[in-house]
């Protein structure tokens, strides 16, 4: 056995060198800029990379097309971060766990250069989007959590604001669609046999 191990020693050395070389080549790309300073928490997402960087909050539609609106569209438009080098990073998600986008958190900072901390997300994609967890406005000394979605929703739907259960069980837009099309979107009658089978 020892002889066998010894016989394959050169192969092991070559393999070890190759792995090391590959690791040295790949390692810098595996960590996003600002990863060392980032305090983002892992969400176990595909291809997630911790990141911290600065960028100007912009209305993506305006940035791409010149179709602009006051105050980044007042919540109706998707927002992104325009980095100093000209890269545009779309922000898909905030720090909350209930299907919440990031517009409510970024809108008050429209046009400002801010620092963000979070996760770049995506695997086998040309570019990753940002899930923002922490925000630090220009001139501020501390980061705060990007948890502003629920309060914005309550302001928009005050009659549902104090109800029981998560927002997505009470949102009138969603309830109307489910009433009309069911949970599968195929009509309420299509749900019944599937519910019977799966629950």
């Amino acid at each position, binding site marked *: 056995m020892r002889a066998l191990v010894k016989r394959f020693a050169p192969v092991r050395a070559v393999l070890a060198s190759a792995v090391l070389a590959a690791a040295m080549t790949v390692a810098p790309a595996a960590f996003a800029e600002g990863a060392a300073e980032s305090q983002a928490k892992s969400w176990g997402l595909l291809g997630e990379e911790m990141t911290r960087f600065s960028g100007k909050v*912009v209305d993506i539609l305006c940035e791409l*097309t010149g179709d602009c609106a006051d105050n980044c569209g007042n919540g109706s438009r998707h927002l992104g971060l325009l980095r100093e080098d000209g890269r545009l990073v779309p922000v898909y998600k905030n720090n909350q766990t209930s299907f*919440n986008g990031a517009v409510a958190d970024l809108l008050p900072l429209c046009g400002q250069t801010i620092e963000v901390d979070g996760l770049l*997300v995506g695997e086998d994609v040309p570019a990753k989007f940002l899930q923002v967890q922490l925000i630090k406005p220009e001139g501020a000394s501390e980061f705060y959590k990007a948890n502003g979605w629920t309060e914005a929703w309550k302001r928009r739907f005050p009659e549902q604001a104090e109800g029981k259960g998560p927002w*997505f069980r009470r949102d009138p837009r*969603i309830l109307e669609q489910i009433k009309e099309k069911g949970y599968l979107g195929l009509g309420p009658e299509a749900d019944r046999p599937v519910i019977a089978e799966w629950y």
Partner: protein
Amino acid sequence: MTVRQRLAGLSERMQNGVRQTALPAVLLGSFLAGPAMAATGERTQITGEVMDTWCYFSGVMGGQEAVVGSSHHTCAMWCAAGGIPVGVLADDGTVYMVLKLEGKTTADGDPALLSIQSDRITADGFVYERDGFKYLVVEKVVSNEGITNLNHNDFGFIPPFAVPEGDR
């Protein structure tokens, strides 16, 4: 004065004139126009499924084949209502982030946007590419086949809590 000198003088006057006219125009333009990077999109028609980009790319609800279609319809509405970008998953696998749908921007969960979640549509509009992302401004939904990916037969409801206990 030679012809060359006359031409040189003309050129100088023209340049000064253009400068005097152009400078205010540029300054005015910089206030009125959009960002410097604004570009012309490519007019095209995209056929594919209206879908939830967050669950699809993050893997938070499972594999990509399970977070589209009928099985994921309710969750796709939740994400659209929550202001997460809606995409169109084209037949070649490309995902286009929808910025505008028939004149309305898409971050505020408009009911019109919710009503086409999971549907297979053909959208006529403009595609913009920037830094690895493809963005779509839909001028018109030219056809809507409804939900054609009936993957609930394989996956049931994704996530399982899509249907509240009271409705099971």
